[in-house]
């Protein structure tokens, strides 16, 4: 009973809870879901993320600092993954930056080249060296003193309304001390001049000059920039000052308007004013005036010409080489006994393949005639027998060894032999020539047969007929009766003298087959003459009755 009532109570409590806290319970469930469900969490954060970043950035720089390593890492990963996408994104920035850098480098190079040219070898340079020696100053110091065109010594940034100094730069720190007073005084001077001369117009002083010292004054709505220079500044420098004032005016408008004497906010001016603290030297100024570093340009142009010339010479040489090569190939193509089947280029060498008659002109020896280098040409030539007539003729000549008194020619396969020859040589030659390919007929009708003058003529180099194959059937045109060669006594005597070479003390007379020898001669010559006179065919007998060997060695 008691348990039952307990249960009833519990159910009633449940009911009561449900009635009282149903709404809260649902909300609690929702909140619990929100906390546990990562996805929902992210969605909630996403709603406020941009706003949160904005607020934090306004507060301090911590967000940037904490994100930096992550961003660096992502960039690294992005590059590792695909460098192209990042390089595409950076392209519009990189191009101008690189161009600017290159332009600067070239300008600097030209300038230093110009100065080096100017100072190293000029009379002026020598003078300065002498001056440096005389005054025991360094050469660099002398050059600087002589070439200084202008130097910016001080830069004052002045608040226009109060004349108070906002920022000051100087090449000499000692000048910093009075800068504030000078600044005010400069303003007073401006006011004074304006009051005295310009009346009520709003024009201020732009320039003050004393000797080589110049104060350039550029006025903006709230600031005055006074630049103290020694020497003559180029026109472009004034533009630079103007740009600086415009720039500063734009960047610090609010600070100028709210200026109450506190100069702290203007310490960052340094980066704008520092570029004005420059100096320039003659070399640079001259090039500035001329608008172009003319010497350097000439040097560069000359260099370009030399390069072009060198290249063109190479081209011409190449063309010449090609022409020479072409002419050479033409030449060996026309050369009898050479057939070119292939020309290859390999590793800078030319390989010529083909056929070559051993009796033809060696193509290698022709190279030098065309100005070509033989070491760059390789010949792969197979031997063959050419049937061109000049080569056939050569081959015939090699075989029959014609004496000087014989001429041989080839025409349409006919070998023509003419001149004077002995019967035996002619017949051997006729037989041998027929074995040569290309010789179809032999015409020896023009040969005068010489009944041998010397009995052994012309047997110094006999033709070896037994080495030849069986005799081919070819026509030999020959006179049926060989012409008898008519020989005078005088001619015979000449041959005898040529053979016996008699000393001057001997007289020779030839008549009708008999040689009469008189005078004095040595024993040995007489012996030689006796043994050899019969070698002249016409001499039958030898008379020596009037020949003595007395007193001869």
């Amino acid at each position, binding site marked *: 009973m008691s348990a039952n009532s307990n249960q009833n109570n519990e159910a009633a409590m449940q009911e009561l809870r449900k009635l009282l806290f149903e709404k809260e319970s649902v909300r609690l469930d929702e909140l619990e879901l929100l906390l546990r469900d990562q996805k929902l969490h992210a969605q909630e954060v996403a709603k406020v993320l941009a706003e949160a970043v904005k607020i934090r950035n306004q507060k301090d720089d911590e967000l940037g600092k904490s994100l930096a390593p992550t961003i660096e890492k992502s960039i690294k990963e992005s590059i590792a993954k695909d460098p192209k996408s990042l390089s595409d994104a950076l392209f519009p920035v990189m191009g101008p930056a690189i161009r600017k850098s290159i332009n600067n480098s070239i300008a600097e190079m030209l300038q230093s080249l110009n100065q080096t040219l100017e100072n190293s070898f000029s009379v002026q340079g020598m003078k300065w060296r002498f001056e440096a020696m005389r005054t025991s100053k360094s050469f660099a110091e002398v050059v600087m003193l002589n070439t200084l065109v202008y130097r910016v010594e001080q830069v004052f940034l002045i608040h226009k309304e*109060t004349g108070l100094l906002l920022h000051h730069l100087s090449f000499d720190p000692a000048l910093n001390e009075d800068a*504030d007073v*000078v600044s*005010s005084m400069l303003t007073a001077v401006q006011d004074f001049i304006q009051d005295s001369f310009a009346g009520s117009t709003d024009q201020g002083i732009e320039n003050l000059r004393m000797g080589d010292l110049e104060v350039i004054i550029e006025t903006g709505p709230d600031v005055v920039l006074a630049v103290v220079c020694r020497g003559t500044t180029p026109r472009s420098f004034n533009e630079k000052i103007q740009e600086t004032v415009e720039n500063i005016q734009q960047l610090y408008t609010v600070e100028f308007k709210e200026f109450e004497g*506190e*100069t702290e906010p203007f310490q960052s001016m340094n980066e704008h004013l520092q570029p004005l603290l420059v100096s320039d030297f003659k070399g640079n100024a001259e090039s500035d005036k001329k608008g172009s570093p003319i010497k350097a340009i000439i040097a560069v142009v000359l260099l370009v010409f030399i390069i072009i010339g060198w290249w063109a010479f190479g081209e011409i040489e190449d063309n010449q080489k090609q022409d020479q090569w072409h002419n050479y190939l033409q030449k060996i193509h026309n050369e009898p006994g050479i057939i070119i089947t292939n020309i290859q280029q390999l590793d800078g060498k030319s390989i010529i393949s083909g056929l070559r008659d051993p009796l033809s002109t060696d193509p290698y020896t022709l190279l030098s005639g065309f100005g070509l280098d033989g070491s760059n040409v390789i010949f792969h030539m197979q031997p063959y027998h050419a049937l061109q007539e000049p080569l056939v003729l050569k081959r015939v000549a090699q075989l029959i060894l014609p004496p000087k008194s014989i001429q041989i020619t080839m025409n349409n396969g006919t070998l023509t032999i003419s001149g004077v020859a002995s019967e035996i040589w002619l017949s051997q030659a006729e037989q041998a020539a027929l074995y040569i390919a290309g010789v179809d007929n032999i015409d020896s009708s023009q040969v005068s047969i010489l009944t041998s003058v010397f009995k052994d003529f012309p047997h110094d180099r006999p033709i070896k007929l037994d080495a030849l194959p069986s005799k081919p059937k070819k026509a030999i045109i020959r006179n049926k009766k060989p012409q008898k060669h008519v020989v005078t006594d005088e001619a015979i005597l000449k041959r005898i003298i040529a053979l016996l070479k008699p000393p001057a003390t001997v007289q020779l007379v030839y008549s009708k087959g008999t040689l009469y020898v008189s005078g004095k001669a040595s024993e040995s010559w007489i012996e030689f003459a006796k043994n050899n006179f019969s070698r002249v065919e016409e001499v039958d007998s030898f008379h020596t009755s009037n020949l003595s060997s007395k007193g001869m060695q």
Partner: protein
Amino acid sequence: MIQKKICILGAAGVGKTSLTAQFVYSKFSEKYLSSMGVKIDRKVVHVDETDVNLMIWDVHGEEKYKKIPTSYLRGASGILMVIDGTRIDTVAVAEEVRQRVLDKLGDVPFVYLLNKSDLQDAWSINENIMQQLQVTGSPILLTSAKTGDNVETAFSTIAKAMLPT
């Protein structure tokens, strides 16, 4: 450091230049005063733990035919108005100049310096004049350039008056 431009004004011969001469850093000689009508000096004063660099424009004295050029007043944050305690006419000149300054600059702090306080025998500033000056609400100091009396105070008073409270 805070910089402020002040002008020291008054009739001719009231002792403006003498007041500043011994107590300030002078770069420029007095010839500027006669030629250009102004000489600028510097004085650093320490006020309420702040160093204030005062650029003091010592403008030539007001005369009948030589008025103070108003362009020198431009941008001034405070005025030291000097009166010669022995010459009563210099009070009127001071008043005239004060009006011109107020026209040009609006409401800027003034400090009256009744100078030559060492010359008590010739002193001619009476109670009436003192009341007249006190009406302006500006501090009034008796100074002596000769003895140096109140000169430092004069500069620190104007510096204090110019700083935001």
